[in-house]
């Protein structure tokens, strides 16, 4: 008798609110220390990328001059158009002052008096063959690497989802044609194709994003197609169709959310891959055009000298390595988090 009462009271305990799908994924993800560390690294890189002008540059962040306040990093001023900030700062009258970024060198500023100097006081990461500050170039390169990684993957995700959805949803002849497209893309030596396109077009940052994105969608498209082929047989999809929902509504509102988690995992790995490809392109001289800073570009300069300029190898190499590892580890942690078979380890 007693035991029954206990049983009843257990049944009536309030059910805790479900954290939802993404909530559960996040709880699982947080358990992975390595992936969480990697996520923090990515956040740090984002902060560096967004605020790179405030971290490294030869313009003052804040300048009080002739009784007026200026923010030269943020805005352009007519009266400061041809001003050399170094001279200006040295000859500033009393009560006027300038606040500089912690690293006082811009990424494109030449200093031919200190070419290829190893890391030391003013240039913490040394200088390259034109006397540009390596640390400043690395900081500004973060923005380029991350934006290429994200935009390229964004393009790949859009193409991949579009093709995967129509192939998996309609099947039949549509699927056949899209599958041929997959096969064409998979069979291409992709890096060779990217190189060819960039050699025949301007290697601008936008072209690089487009080319990497337009050649990198196969993995995502295959994933989405597979998921859609599977989901198409579910009765909830049939019910939605039977209720008269238009095709695009069934695809986007009912099916896509169920196929989205693996796409996100694949995109995380994709960002790592795109950053690697960009650095390889810059290394070969097909990357971001010269004055722009890029990690691969800094690295390629070390190749031209007989003397081993180790700082031109170590720092950009470490930056590429850290970023790519971080994205891969987050992708790995995320993949484990969405896999229900691995829950409750």
């Amino acid at each position, binding site marked *: 008798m007693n035991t029954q009462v206990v049983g009843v009271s257990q049944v009536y305990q309030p059910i805790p609110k479900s954290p939802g799908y993404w909530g559960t994924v996040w709880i699982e993800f947080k358990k992975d220390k390595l992936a969480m560390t990697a996520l923090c690294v990515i956040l740090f890189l984002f902060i560096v990328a967004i605020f790179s002008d405030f971290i490294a540059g030869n313009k003052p962040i804040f300048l009080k001059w002739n009784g007026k306040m200026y923010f030269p990093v943020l805005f352009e001023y007519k009266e400061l158009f041809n001003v050399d900030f170094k001279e200006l700062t040295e000859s500033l009258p009393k009560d006027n002052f300038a606040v500089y970024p912690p690293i006082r060198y811009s990424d494109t500023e030449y200093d031919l008096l200190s070419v290829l100097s190893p890391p030391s006081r003013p240039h913490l990461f040394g200088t390259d063959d034109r006397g540009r500050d390596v640390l400043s170039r690395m900081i500004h390169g973060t923005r380029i690497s991350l934006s290429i990684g994200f935009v390229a993957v964004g393009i790949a995700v859009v193409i991949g989802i579009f093709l995967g959805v129509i192939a998996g949803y309609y099947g039949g002849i549509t699927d056949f044609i899209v599958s041929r497209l997959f*096969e064409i893309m998979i069979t291409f030596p*992709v890096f060779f194709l990217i190189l*060819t396109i960039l050699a*025949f077009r301007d290697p601008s940052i936008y072209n690089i994003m487009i080319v990497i994105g337009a050649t990198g969608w196969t993995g995502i498209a295959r994933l989405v197609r597979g998921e859609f082929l599977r989901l198409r047989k579910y009765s909830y999809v049939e019910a939605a169709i039977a209720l008269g929902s238009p095709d695009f509504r069934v695809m986007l509102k009912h099916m896509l959310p169920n196929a989205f988690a693996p796409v996100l995992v694949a995109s995380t790995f994709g960002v790592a891959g795109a950053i*690697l490809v960009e650095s390889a392109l810059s290394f070969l001289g097909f990357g971001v055009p010269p004055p722009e800073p890029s990690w691969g570009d800094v*690295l390629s300069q070390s190749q031209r000298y007989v003397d*081993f300029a180790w700082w031109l190898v170590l720092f950009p190499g470490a930056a590429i*390595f850290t970023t790519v590892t971080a994205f891969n580890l987050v992708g790995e942690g995320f993949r484990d988090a969405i896999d229900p078979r691995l829950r409750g380890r």
Partner: protein
Amino acid sequence: MFRDSNHEPRFTNHDMRTYLLKRLFLIIPTLLGITLVTFFVIQLAPGNPVSRKLQVGEGVKAEAITKDIIEQTKKLYGLDKPIYIRYWIWLKQIATLDFGRSYKDHRPVIQKIAERLPVTLSINIISILLVYIISIPLGVYSAVTQGSIRDRAITFFLFALYSIPSFWLAMVLIYFLGGGEFWDVFPIYGILSPGAENYPFLKKLLNFLWHITLPVICLTYGDLAYLSRYQRGSLLEVLRSEFIRTARAKGLTESNVIFKHALRNALIPIITIVASVLPAMIGGSVIIESIFSIPGIGQLGFEAVLSRDYPLIMAIATISAFLTLIGILISDLAYVMVDPRISFEGKR
């Protein structure tokens, strides 16, 4: 190919023949698509090989070149016709396996490729073999010790390797082992020492292996992560199945269960995945072959892109795509033949 009926294949029915014919037929649209994309990418680009070729011609100034010469040169290379006609002409040539002549030195393109292909293939085959030899045991070990510190350490280490750009490692290896800063252990240029062509076979082989050590390292380490993870996953999948439980239940030793029962099944997907590594071979070779000055397809392709050698670029894209398609087909066939659970109907 299938005329002789004396040797009855394992699949006696028509399955295999229809499947094979279907797949071979499907190669045609894919190849067409690849040539179409490549053709239009390079031919619609601004600038053309004529201006590039004339610029390098014995110090002739650009102004000195009359329109006539440009038109004549264009005609010589067939560049005076509209693009779709050029593509049609190119296709007709390809149908007779004529890939044309290189713009650079007027040698037949196919001959240039035939010279370079063996180098790239041998380097990549060695690299793929190494990848398999290393990553299968690693994958098995991590699967068996799943979730342990050792499994995690292996995973992290391989991921770290995977994240190192190959060109970066190539430079570091050159600096440290190629006589740059520290040891002068390995050569960093070419595939044979000067004069080594006349060495006796074994000595020549050793010389070759010595030369390709660094490039092969650079081509190999990145794929380790992918394949060993794949092996790990595939073995874990098999270890969950019923017949493994049965094998354990009847009291087999753990090594017997893993190596005799599980591993054999887990090896099937990893062996057949080799085809997906193929297209990456040419791409990966571009950068490594350029750094180590290896006369392979990758370097040839890079030079072709730089000098806008249309026929050569087209031929490299077409031939490497064809090789990859054949590779995929063979691996799919092998998959069906090795694994009796999969039928030809089941595959597409």
